[in-house]
């Protein structure tokens, strides 16, 4: 925009300014003398007024007053009768007074005009600085990825940063001037009047809002409102900052859903566990009593009647007793098995080598009269439930003893296989009757047996117990075997933090 450079109209130096006044009056004087020589009349006054006007315009009030004085004096001396005297005739007084008044008025007007002009310049400069600052601030606001916009008290958008454009898809040109609630189809959690009341009371409001993007999808935002007031404390505008929390909300809801599900399952599990406990308790009391009675009365019968009944009847009674005893063992094993599932594991640092020694002591009875070559390598320490791990070893070792019974020279090896950094693997290997890998999946099932009970006694619960304990320790069990060529049973346990490896 082409604007006159107002500043240059006033010379800065006082010498130049007053010089200009003297010069313009001198030029007017010279021109008047020249024009009078050519018999033009009454030219001096307008020319002096012109000189004063120039001085006022270009040099300011002080030089203008000087110009008025100089013009007045020159005028009375050279152009008003009597000439070459500063005196004037009475008849010329009004003329002179009006001239001076007019000149003064001109100076006054010019002074007012200049003051107005100076103020204007000042105001323009201030405005320019403010515009520059604001532009800078606005571009700073554009740098943030937060969504920021400003709306006036009737919710018309007046500022819209780039974050807002990125989130909602409307450009600043599209958004500014629009009604914000309409543009974004805002859904409020509480009535808008309440929110406004809070905003007016505290100058701020925070909450979650649902808004709709330009392309139509809904977003959940964490919204913060700040109220701006003018000097008289009147509400002026609302600055709103939005953060897109749609994804977070979705995840929160997902987590809440999962938590609810988990809580429900946990409750279910708890009640199932309670039922199981009651069931086991009932078995342990109620199932054993009739069994005891069967065995008791059969034995009494045996005692009373063995002399009078035949051998066959005696054998039948013996079978009843044997079955009762076997059922007693089954119940005991089953209860022990269910107890492992229910008991709390109490993990401490356990020396496997020590546990093996204890397990061997426990099964010593079974090794009497047997020729067994034991090979026990170095075993690590790790965290686990001591009594449960001991049960694992007792089961595996007594199995090895049992299934090598047919060997003249039994070999049983207990050692540690190469695990990885995260888990350790312990194995028990024997040269016994082994098993067909076809049935490996049946090995660890409850009451699953691969041998007839008259060949190898047992309830078929030992390996199921082993598996349950190892699973409760976060490990795995597996086995390798060949019919008539021995078997190896492995179990792994995670070497989690604190599982020390001490070979």
């Amino acid at each position, binding site marked *: 925009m082409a604007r006159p450079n107002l500043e240059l109209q006033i010379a800065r130096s006082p010498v130049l300014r007053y010089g200009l006044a003297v010069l313009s009056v001198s030029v007017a004087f010279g021109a008047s003398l020249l024009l009078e020589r050519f018999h033009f009349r009454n030219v001096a006054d307008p020319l002096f007024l012109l000189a004063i006007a120039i001085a006022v315009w270009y040099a300011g009030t002080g030089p203008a007053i000087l110009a008025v004085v100089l013009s007045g004096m020159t005028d009375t001396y050279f152009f008003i009768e009597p000439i070459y005297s500063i005196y004037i005739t009475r008849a010329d007084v009004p003329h002179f007074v009006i001239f001076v008044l007019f000149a003064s008025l001109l100076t006054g007007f010019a002074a007012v005009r200049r003051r107005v002009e100076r103020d204007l310049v000042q105001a323009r400069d201030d405005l320019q600085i403010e515009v520059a600052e604001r532009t800078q601030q606005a571009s700073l606001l554009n740098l943030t990825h937060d969504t920021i916009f400003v709306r006036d008290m009737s919710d018309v958008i007046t500022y819209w940063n780039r974050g807002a454009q990125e989130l909602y898809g409307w450009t600043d040109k599209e958004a500014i001037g629009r009604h914000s609630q309409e543009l974004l189809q805002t859904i409020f959690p509480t009535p808008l009047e309440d929110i406004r009341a809070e905003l007016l009371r505290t100058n701020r409001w925070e909450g979650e809002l649902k808004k709709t993007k330009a392309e139509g999808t809904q977003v959940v935002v964490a919204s913060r409102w700040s109220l701006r007031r003018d000097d008289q404390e009147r509400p002026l505008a609302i600055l709103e900052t939005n953060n897109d929390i749609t994804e977070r909300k979705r995840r929160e809801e997902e987590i809440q859903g999962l938590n609810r599900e988990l809580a429900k399952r946990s409750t279910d599990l708890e009640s199932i566990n309670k039922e199981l406990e009651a069931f*086991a*308790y009932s078995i*342990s*009391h*109620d199932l*054993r*009593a009739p*069994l*005891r*009675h069967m*065995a*008791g*009365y*059969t*034995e*009494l019968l045996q005692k009373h009647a063995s002399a009078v009944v035949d051998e066959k009847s005696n054998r039948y009674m013996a079978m009843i*007793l044997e079955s*009762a*005893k076997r*059922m*007693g063992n089954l119940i*005991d094993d089953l*209860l022990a098995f269910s*107890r492992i599932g229910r008991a709390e594991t109490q993990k401490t640092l356990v020396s496997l080598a020590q546990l093996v020694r204890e397990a061997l002591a426990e099964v010593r009875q079974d090794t009497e009269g047997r020729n067994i070559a034991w090979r026990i390598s170095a075993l690590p320490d790790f965290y686990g439930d001591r009594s449960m791990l001991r049960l694992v070893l007792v089961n595996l070792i007594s199995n090895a003893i049992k299934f090598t019974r047919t060997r003249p020279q039994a070999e049983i090896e207990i050692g540690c296989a190469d695990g990885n950094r995260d888990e350790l693997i312990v194995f028990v290997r024997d040269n016994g009757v082994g098993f067909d890998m076809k049935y490996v999946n049946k090995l660890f099932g409850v009451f699953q047996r691969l041998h007839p009970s008259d060949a190898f006694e047992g309830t078929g619960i030992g390996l199921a117990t082993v598996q349950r304990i190892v699973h409760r320790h976060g490990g795995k069990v597996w086995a390798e075997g060949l019919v008539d060529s021995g078997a190896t049973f492995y179990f792994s346990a995670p070497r989690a933090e604190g599982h020390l490896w001490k070979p």
Partner: protein
Amino acid sequence: METMSKLGRILMVEDDPKDVELTLTALEEYNLANEVIVTRDGEQALDYLYCRGEYQTRSRDNPAVMLLDLKLPKVDGLEVLKQIKSEGELRMIPVVVLTSSKEEKDMVASYKLGVNAYVVKPVDFHEFVNAIKELGVFWAVINEPPPGSVRK
């Protein structure tokens, strides 16, 4: 038998008649059954101990030992145990829990209440008879009962 003369009286609390019969048979086998009081539930046992109800007129002396089943009608064994072990006089009566259950929580609860022995009835009759015999011999013969118990 020499010990007969100083045989202690046994109070048995057992609801199952077969268990009662088998126990008595076992005790008989070793001549320990001549002074056995059988009560069939917890309430009756307490009536006996407090000399009330049908036992109002019984002799005031206490049994040398009490064989207590846990699963009982009306008042269960743990409750009976709790009551008598919190009672000045009755507290002195030795109590042996004789139960089918191997449940750890029953065992812990019994010992916490101050039981003197905890025996799980073996399924095998031989073992059962042996257990009963040893209990009878120990508590009714060998053990010196607290003052106020009856000895014959």
